[in-house]
């Protein structure tokens, strides 16, 4: 990907979308990062994802990072359904779908076969799952595969509910969110439980590399995927992928919603390598969470009191993360 360096009008535009909020003097560094992004589109256009789908952006960026020498096993879910309707496919890499709960187990078989056949060198093995396929039904298979130390990278694209079946809550649905199985009502505030901290679970497995990402920060995500596949052993990346349909926002706002998730602290960008946590993007000043919540229908029922609770929870999570 090429960018023009650096005239004033494009810098102004740049500034509006800049994930790093850089000053002009440091902008060239950012441009160099952009230049390293591959032009190759291995997740082909023409797939059936909804307009503004964050997960489809994640698939595209993910493959820009891994390149062609990659085999992927994907669990059942949105990205599988929209990308692989026979006789068409969006995948320009070898790709297999087996079932919902076992992408990591399938990937472990692929990795073992490559090793047994002497073909592993230079080939990345990916397992891809949505949040349901990862934090709920696929947790056991993922735990096993990571604990066994297979050389593979697991990508969880998190749209915070079972979107493919019509927006039912998952273990990754945030507190207070309305879904079709956690509707607010006289006796309910919506989803009653906090989001499962999946990256922490992966850190507890002593995965070689664990990172969080968001599609609104494409360079950060791409660089993390590159790092993950370059490290020998199991790596885990949890990428937040806003969903216009399930979250209730206009389809042109995907990137903006994702940015706000990070700028309000609802979602933090960090990586954990050898037990060391490094925050890869720190908002200059954390925005009030209300700005994020009010953009989405799934939170519109929340009272000021509930919003305050969410804000406090963010504060606590941040403290734990930076400590």
């Amino acid at each position, binding site marked *: 990907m090429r960018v023009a360096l650096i005239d004033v009008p494009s810098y102004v535009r740049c500034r509006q979308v800049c994930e790093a909020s850089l000053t002009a003097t440091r902008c060239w560094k950012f441009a160099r990062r952009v230049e390293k992004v591959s032009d190759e589109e291995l997740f082909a256009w023409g797939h059936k994802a909804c307009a503004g789908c964050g997960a489809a952006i994640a698939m595209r960026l993910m493959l820009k990072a891994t390149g*062609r*020498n*990659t*085999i992927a*096993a994907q669990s059942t879910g949105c990205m*599988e*359904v929209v990308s*692989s*309707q*026979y*006789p068409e*496919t969006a*995948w*320009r*890499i*070898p*790709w*297999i*779908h*087996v*079932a919902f*709960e*076992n992408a990591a*187990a*399938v*990937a*472990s*078989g*692929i*990795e*073992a*076969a*490559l*090793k*047994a*056949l002497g073909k592993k060198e230079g*080939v990345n093995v990916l397992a891809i799952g949505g949040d349901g396929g990862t934090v709920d039904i696929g947790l*056991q*298979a993922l*735990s*096993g*595969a990571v*604990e*066994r130390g297979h050389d593979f990278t697991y990508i969880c694209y998190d749209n915070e509910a079972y979107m493919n079946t019509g927006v039912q809550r998952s273990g990754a649905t945030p507190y207070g969110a309305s879904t079709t199985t956690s509707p607010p009502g006289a006796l309910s505030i919506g989803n009653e439980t906090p989001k499962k901290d999946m990256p922490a679970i992966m850190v507890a497995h002593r995965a070689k590399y664990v990172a969080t990402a968001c599609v609104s920060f494409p360079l950060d995500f791409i660089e993390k995927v590159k790092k993950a596949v370059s490290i020998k052993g199991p790596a885990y990346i949890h990428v937040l992928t806003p969903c216009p349909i399930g979250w209730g926002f206009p389809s042109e706002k995907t990137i903006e919603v994702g940015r706000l998730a990070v700028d309000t602290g609802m979602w933090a960008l960090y990586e954990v390598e050898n037990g060391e946590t490094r925050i890869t993007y720190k908002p200059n000043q954390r925005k009030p969470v209300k700005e994020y919540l009010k953009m989405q229908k799934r939170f519109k029922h929340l009272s000021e009191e509930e919003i305050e609770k969410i804000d406090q929870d963010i504060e606590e999570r941040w403290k734990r993360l930076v400590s």
Partner: protein
Amino acid sequence: MPRRDVIHGSRALAEAVKLCDVKVIAAYPITPQTHIVEDIAKFVANGELKAEYIKVESEHSAMSACIGSSATGARTFTATSSQGLALMYEMLFVASGLRLPIVMANANRAMSAPINIWNDQQDTISVRDCGWLQFYCETNQEVLDYTIQAFKISESKGVYLPSIVCLDGYVLTHTIEPVEIPDKEAVEEFLPPYSPPFFLDPKEPMTLGPLGDPSVYMEFRKEQEKGMEKAYEIIKKVNKEFGEQFGRNYGMIEEYNMENAEIALITLGSVAGTIKDVIDESKEKVGLIKIRTFRPFPKEDLIKALKDVSSVAVIEKDISIGLGEGAVFSELKGILYATNVHPNIINAIVGLGGRDVTKEHIAKIIKECKKPKQEVIWVGLK
């Protein structure tokens, strides 16, 4: 030179896996299968078998990993039993649907509840519609010989379907018998290296396991059925080749004392040994038809073998609750319906959950099946 050894059925199976140069094994422990994967683990640890052994965290993941491995082009094996097979159930359809020639050993064991670790065949009989070939063994020699043949059959062009080699839990897995173990060279000559027509390969990207909508799904299923039909032909061919090379002849079914027999007993697996003993001692004109290949179901062979008998007893270790009879009995009646072969036929349910099947039980069944009525009897029931 082949060597003779006195070994457990589990060991015979592990020896076969070693001889077949399996590249990936993914397995989870379950009684009475564990000896198989323990022996294989030793072979891998000693370098006798150069393979990757994935110690998965469940049978569901075992079959999932096998699917990943086989789809990547490696000869792949797993072993399980009973509850483990049931946990794989979802994946069994995927393995056959993706046309992956995985070979699995199943130490036949009863299904819970109540939990029971002893032998019957409810586990594999219950997965008969999953698109896997099923072979049932009477002896440890058959266990070894059928495992080797299963790879060749499954990997044959036009078949590309997975196989289950069924050996009765404890009765074979934990019982020692003399077994002739062929040379590695001879097996290599019999079974060429696995080279699939398609596999996951970055040099030639391919999408496996796509979404098949109503406009294509039925065609995929029909192709699988055609694979089974092809398997029927290939099994006979492979049986013949095996006989020519190793001197042990097998068929879809085995007929014992069936010349001039008026009564035919039909069964699967190790209880055939007891039945043969009873036949040898019996004054009746009674013979045995042992079903070796249960999937594909040996329709033609059974019809031919039964055309001159007056009475038949299907002796089986499974029960279709709600129909009140065993699956083999139902299927046999089904295939005979369209023919003019209509002997008197009864069903004996025996040996569930490891209940001993004695010679007296078999003698009783022979007596019962001469009565002119069609019924289901539970033999050995208290």
